[in-house]
């Protein structure tokens, strides 16, 4: 286990270092000057120079890289060029929306998809199976932003049950805040549920063909008992993999849904920061997100070990 952990941590450090190099080079290469974006078309050259000096952009690239990494190692994410507030504060504000939204969507998709996948697998080629697979086909085919718009039209514009978008903030209370996350979570979660249901079904079906299931059945276990006691645990490994991937994708990649529901989440922050050339925000967010993804993968790896004891044994030897 300790070798396993050490390997994982080494990968984590290496990944993060590579991330800093790549993102720094990319931002050096793309055209666009943060000072010019902030000061616009009427700015005097001396004003631009003054602002560049204020932002520390007049120093050579290598100096800027090392001072950035040094700050990062001290846990300092710097001050946003445009917003003039600490980047850590900006990210925390946005995570307070993106993380609950992602978790909400994941919970929703899990609660829907796994039972459906199990039903479909146990009733293979029966009407229930066709129904579930039909649903998931539809869920995969519908783009989530369009689905989001449909939800808004029905629940906000016609029924007026929930606001069409925006986020009142957690200080407005738990229920108003969650209320504004319901439609986005459904819009995000349902297509994911469709994918998960498919994966659950096919993975279970595969496991059900295995020898040990036949053995269990031969020993007198019912079809149901074989599925629940023996197949499910094995069948869930690919499902957990997919969920781990989905989590990272949803956390930073919900940008389209954030736009449709005008939620101030992480995705929108990074998008805005890129278009405004708020380089410090872009760089540090990329590093934070990369760290998050690496960390989630780490958790997923540990979950494998929990689900599949054989992996534990492998490390001991």
């Amino acid at each position: 286990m300790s070798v396993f952990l050490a390997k994982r941590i080494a990968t984590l450090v290496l990944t993060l270092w590579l991330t800093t190099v790549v993102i720094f080079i990319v931002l050096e290469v793309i055209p666009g000057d943060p000072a010019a974006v902030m000061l616009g078309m009427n700015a005097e050259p001396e004003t631009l120079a003054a602002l560049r000096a204020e932002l520390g952009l007049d120093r050579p690239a290598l100096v800027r890289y090392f001072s950035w990494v040094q700050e990062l190692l001290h846990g300092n994410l710097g001050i946003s060029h445009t917003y003039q507030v600490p980047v850590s504060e900006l990210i925390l504000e946005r995570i307070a929306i993106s993380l609950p939204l992602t978790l909400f969507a994941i919970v929703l998709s899990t609660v829907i998809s796994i039972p459906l996948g199990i039903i479909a697998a146990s009733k293979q080629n029966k009407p229930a199976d066709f129904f579930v697979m039909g649903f998931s086909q539809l869920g995969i085919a519908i783009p989530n932003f369009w689905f989001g718009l449909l939800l808004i039209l029905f629940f906000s514009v016609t029924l007026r049950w929930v606001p069409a978008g925006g986020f009142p903030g957690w200080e407005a209370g738990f229920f108003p805040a969650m209320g504004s996350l319901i439609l986005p979570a459904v819009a995000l979660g349902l297509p994911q549920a469709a994918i998960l249901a498919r994966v659950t079904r096919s993975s279970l079906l595969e496991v059900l063909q295995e020898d040990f299931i036949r053995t269990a059945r031969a020993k007198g276990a019912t079809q149901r008992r074989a599925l629940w006691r023996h197949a499910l645990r094995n069948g869930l490994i690919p499902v957990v993999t997919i969920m781990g991937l989905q989590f990272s994708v949803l956390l930073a990649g919900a940008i389209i849904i954030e736009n449709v529901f005008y939620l101030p989440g992480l995705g929108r922050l990074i998008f805005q920061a890129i278009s405004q050339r708020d380089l410090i925000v872009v760089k540090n967010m990329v590093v934070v997100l990369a760290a998050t993804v690496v960390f989630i993968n780490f958790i997923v790896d540990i979950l494998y070990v929990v689900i599949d004891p054989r992996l534990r044994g492998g490390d001991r030897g």
Partner: protein
Amino acid sequence: MFSLRKVFGGIAVALCLTFAASSAMAAKSSLIMGMVLEPPHLDPTAGAAAAIDEVVYANIFEGLTRIDRWGVVRPALAKLWRVSEDKKTYTFYLRKGVRFHNGSAFDASDVVFSLNRARGKSSTNAQKVLFKPIETVTRKGKYTVVVTLKQVTGSFLFNMGWGDAVMVDRASAATNKSKPIGTGPFKFKRWVRGDRIEMVKNTDYWGKPVKLQKATIKIIPDPAAATAALLAGDVDAFANFPAPEALKQLENDPRLKIVIGNTEGETILSTNNQRGPFKKLKVRQALAYAINRQEIIDGAMFGFGTPIGTHFAPHHPAYVDLTAKFAYNPQKAKQLLAEAGYPNGFKAVIKLPPTPYARRGGEIVASQLRKVGIRLEIIPVEWAQWLAQVFKKRDYDLTIVSHTEPMDIGIYARKDYYFAYDSPKFQALMKKLNETVDRDARHKIMGEAQRIISDDCVNGYLFQLAKGGVWNKDLRGLWENSPVQANDLTEVYWVK
């Protein structure tokens, strides 16, 4: 028993009626207004983003003068002023009893501080050029300030009404970006970044108190989301609605009112006058004849916008309508191209910034120019790229952009500007304009200036950007036009 029920019933009905009556009588006193772009920060003296002024101008911050809904200069923190005989010395008499939102009193030393900060060496004021004519700023008593100018500047009082020239307090100047402190009728309350900015009524205001108790600016970047938010009643108004294509749909909603107004945005096909074929006047003339303005307005703006024939706002009294001079005439365009030595046309590049008018307009321009033989390669660019490549390095042939600064015809006198237009005649004329204070004489010069750039076909002149406002039919007092980039809420109120 029976009668008791009746009594209770009666009370219940009476209560209901009272509630209904009281809620009907008390008009709403809060406003939620949608905006597409979030301001990067809230200090109008340190950024070019229009969104900053659209939140704070006249609401939170005030200057010596202000520009009203008609584009007219009015007294603000200076209650009156005197201009010397030689038009180079301005004496401003300040209002007394004005306080910043942090409680400190406003007086002459704040004016000296604010103006010197804006024109100082380390200034990051995006419109520092406005303060260039200033030679000295002197405090003459607690409520009197004297400003002397290096040269006569006809537009000085107007310039002092820009958002970039507002008065700030020494103690809070450095933190205005995140916590703006001004003298205006609204106080900043909080900013939930990415979502909304809240302002509340300033009960300590020196002037006429505002009717709204609270104003919230809600940031909604997506046009479809903006439409849904209006239809769902989440926002009361969109002073500048982002999607002209949705206005028809909103028009059918009886709760909403659509108000089409003017802006200061001249939308032009900017041309690099020093590059390739565009150096030749005949080619630029051909370009002017090849453009069908109405088709562009219909296609890119769904019919909203006024055709222009020069770089000047059509609602300005000095505007000269030159659209007929280069009316759509592809035959003439082809002939001019042939005379210029391009009988088979040529290839060029058009770089388009992300705004919908530019992206959609660019496609239409490209198809119109193809008909006369000019084959455009369309390159979409981000705003930051546009500023770096097109605006700064002049690495472009053509582009489409809206010049939204008010009264900005003076940019044609800057020979290093991105049009690369160098006309000594025009430069001399602008110098004359600056030195002229008399209104009629100024208007005459402005007319002449419009003709020169139109004759020289410096750029393709397309249309004046319209302001499509959508708001609740019970709301009054929002600006119909935008003579400066602002959402002045000082006169806004609900009739119900």
